[in-house]
């Protein structure tokens, strides 16, 4: 099962639909705090988390940090339409491994390739 978080409701829905079409089960959220709550309830049900970076309430780096604290083995992909800010990234995630980066906008086939690569 996959967990997708993007504060843009349209994008979260599109990604969920695309991934479901690839045959995976997906839970999608627009609020990272609600996503954390869900993940905390059943961390072993999820194999992969895909998160946006710029989100209100909690940015993607903080979100990933908390997800990894709950389950250090979970695989994580960060997606953003912006450049990754190295300083901020390394400040919050100094030693945490990110399994993939997606530059928005991306095609579903690109996402499919990344999913195949890391799974």
């Amino acid at each position, binding site marked *: 099962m996959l967990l997708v978080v993007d*504060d*843009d409701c349209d994008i979260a829905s599109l990604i969920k639909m695309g991934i479901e079409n690839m045959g995976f089960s997906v839970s999608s959220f627009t609020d990272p705090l609600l996503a954390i709550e869900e993940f905390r309830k059943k961390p072993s049900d999820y194999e992969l988390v895909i998160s946006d970076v710029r989100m*209100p309430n909690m940015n993607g780096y903080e979100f990933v940090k908390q997800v990894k604290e709950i389950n250090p083995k979970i695989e994580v992909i960060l997606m953003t339409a*912006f450049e990754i800010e190295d300083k*901020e990234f390394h400040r919050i995630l100094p030693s945490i491994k990110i399994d993939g980066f997606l530059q928005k906008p991306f095609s579903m086939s690109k996402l499919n390739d990344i999913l195949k690569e890391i799974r």
Partner: protein
Amino acid sequence: MVSNISLMDCAIQGLLENHYVNEAVNQLIQAEYCSHYLIVYPDLTTLREMYSKYIQKQINKNNETILINPFYETTDSVRQILSKNGINVSKYEKEKGLVIIDSLKEFFGSQPDMLFKRNLVSYAKQTGKNGISIIGDIGAYPHKSKHNDLVDYELSLPTEFDVDMKGFCLYHQKDFNKFSDKQKQELIIHHGKALKIESS
């Protein structure tokens, strides 16, 4: 029994004027140059509706220069939204009647942002504009967990500017919720007006 927290919350809510998008846009259009407002918005969809209506009116009809600093969407996304709403983005960008800069670059870039804004006002006046409006999403600060720095920055700005500039500071509701009650009060009171936009 009413708790202190809810009393404080009520007090803060009472300091914010609630408006739907069209009413809020009218408030912004009527704001005088020198105004410095705080605007709390609920989501990106509502924000897009608000800024596209405001910019369309000010740039096309009220001969104004606009500086917009988005945070939760890209500068290209802003261009697309404005184009869809009948604004000739490339023409206005070319003549510097419309300036779109990412909030992170605006607030954490190499150039002091107020100097840039003052220069933009001078240029706007030289080119016959009435003045400028700045629609700046402060999301860059909470993104970097710099809540205290943002309060210091806001309080360092005047409640009224001394040049032909309207400053509208945009706070996503979820970012605004992260400030302490004391900080929220300080922010609201320091701005000339504080609006909370309701989604339509």
